[in-house]
């Protein structure tokens, strides 16, 4: 970040820089001597845009091992989540109005279910185990004859905990329940094989994987009974499921990012593992430290730790120039302790001290070392500042 040469960015779960190849591919679809035509236009220039979009759909589909025709472009995972959940629930409402999700989902999911609750649907909100994982027995108990839709995320954005979507999906498939997965944090980061996974709908977004902000996709499986009612109406684009001029440069940005992610996924994962382990081994001996979500169940790109007797907001400020998150990026304005960590059973005081470190391709050992240093010294300083004697 040009203006802030000293910043150490460790917030890749909130957003990533755009890969230079992605920027280049996008630029080629914008400039006057590029392909800027409206893909809805029938003329040669319009058809050229269509080709670029088709190519990008192929790239994203290849990453997911699915057919490009199953992908609906949206403005991001938030819209994808809404389309899947509102659209799926509305489409299935005559069959039943019971839906299941977890308390640890992203706001784009929980707020959407809350809207369906206002609309008269019945929602079961499941709590995770302290590890962060969903207990399968509890899940099966929650299922009802009128259950029509289940939405469980893949990688949790705060803790990195990875749910077993294959197992959850198999249970849903058995009972012909729509299964939606918010995969905003996993697509392009860990393997996702939609030809093998019993997933009906999957939300994704480009900006968590070195693509541009403001472009996402919803995968909709080609299976009887799997469909959504649209949320937006207009020019009939995308099989009337999501109208509006297709933002070709954004789509090509997402496609290029997907292709890059596919080509280097194992390398990326190794790197993230190394960075996470370096950070963890640098701080794990601090008294009163604990992880949020079991580290063994978690994606290595995220490490979320709480610390006893340290106030979270002051810790965050003391950590500057580290750019890290407290709660989810999307509600980090909120001073309330994270509802996700609370659902894990973390006390308010501990939840309030949570810091989410998240790593990315550009993260270096030096970044981690600075982070270790800064975290240790900030904790020490704030503890030193606090009065003793009161619990």
């Amino acid at each position, binding site marked *: 970040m040009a203006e802030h040469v000293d910043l150490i960015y460790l917030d890749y779960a909130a957003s990533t820089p755009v890969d230079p190849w992605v920027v280049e591919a996008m630029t080629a679809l914008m400039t006057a001597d590029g392909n800027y035509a409206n893909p809805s236009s029938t003329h040669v220039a319009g058809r050229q845009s269509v080709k670029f979009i088709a190519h990008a759909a192929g790239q994203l589909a290849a990453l997911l091992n699915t057919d490009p025709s199953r992908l609906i472009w949206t403005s991001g995972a938030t819209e994808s989540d809404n389309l899947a959940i509102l659209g799926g629930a509305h489409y299935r409402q005559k069959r039943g109005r019971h839906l299941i999700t977890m308390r640890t989902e992203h706001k784009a999911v929980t707020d959407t279910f809350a809207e369906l609750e206002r609309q008269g649907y019945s929602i079961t909100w499941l709590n995770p185990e302290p590890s962060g994982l969903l207990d399968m027995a509890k899940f099966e108990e929650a299922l009802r004859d009128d259950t029509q839709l289940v939405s469980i995320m893949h990688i949790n954005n705060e803790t990195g905990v990875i749910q077993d979507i294959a197992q959850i999906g198999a249970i849903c498939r058995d009972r012909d329940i729509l299964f939606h997965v918010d995969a905003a944090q996993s697509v392009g980061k860990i393997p996702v094989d939609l030809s093998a996974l019993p997933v009906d709908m999957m939300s994704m977004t480009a900006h968590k994987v070195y693509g541009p902000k403001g472009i996402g996709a919803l995968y909709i499986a080609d299976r009887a009974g799997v469909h959504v009612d649209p949320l937006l109406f207009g020019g009939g684009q995308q099989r009337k499921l999501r109208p509006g001029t297709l933002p070709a440069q954004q789509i090509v940005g997402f496609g290029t990012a997907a292709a890059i992610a596919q080509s280097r996924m194992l390398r990326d994962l190794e790197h993230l593992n190394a960075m996470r382990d370096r950070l963890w081994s640098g701080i794990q001996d601090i008294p009163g430290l604990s992880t949020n979500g079991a580290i063994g169940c978690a994606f290595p790109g995220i490490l979320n730790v709480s610390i006893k*007797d340290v*106030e979270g*907001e*002051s810790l965050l*400020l*003391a950590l500057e120039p580290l750019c890290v998150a407290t709660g989810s990026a999307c509600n980090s*304005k909120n*001073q309330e302790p994270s509802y996700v960590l609370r659902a894990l059973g973390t006390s308010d005081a501990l939840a309030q001290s949570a810091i989410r470190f998240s790593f990315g391709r550009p993260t270096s050992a030096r970044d981690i070392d600075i982070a270790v240093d800064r975290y240790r010294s900030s904790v020490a300083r*704030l503890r*030193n*500042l*606090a*009065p*003793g*004697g*009161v619990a």
Partner: protein
Amino acid sequence: MSADPYSARVRALFADPVHAGQLADAAGALLEDQGVRIAFSAQLAAGRIEALRFQAWGCPHVIAAAEAFCADYEGRNVAELLDFSTSGLMQSLSVPVEKTGRILVIEDTVRLLAQELVKLSPKEP
């Protein structure tokens, strides 16, 4: 979306709270409320506050406010403490209104401290 939640003054006071600490052999006051813990300790000399220190567990505004208070009142008369109110600090530090409750804990602790100090002060004739 938000601008920087901390004014330059808050940032400076938080970064370098020179009055942080606890004085030995001193009068003190400690309060916990609103998720905030504040302690002050003070040494007197001839009715004046010779040294003033704080300890705090709280958000940056609380720490900065405690530091600002100490810097301001060191050297003053004990009696002046009784007039202390946080409204000046709220303004000079640009504390967001939703944090008023926390800053009032400082005011309450100051009042406690003042009571302690008044006990110790030589009575005016």
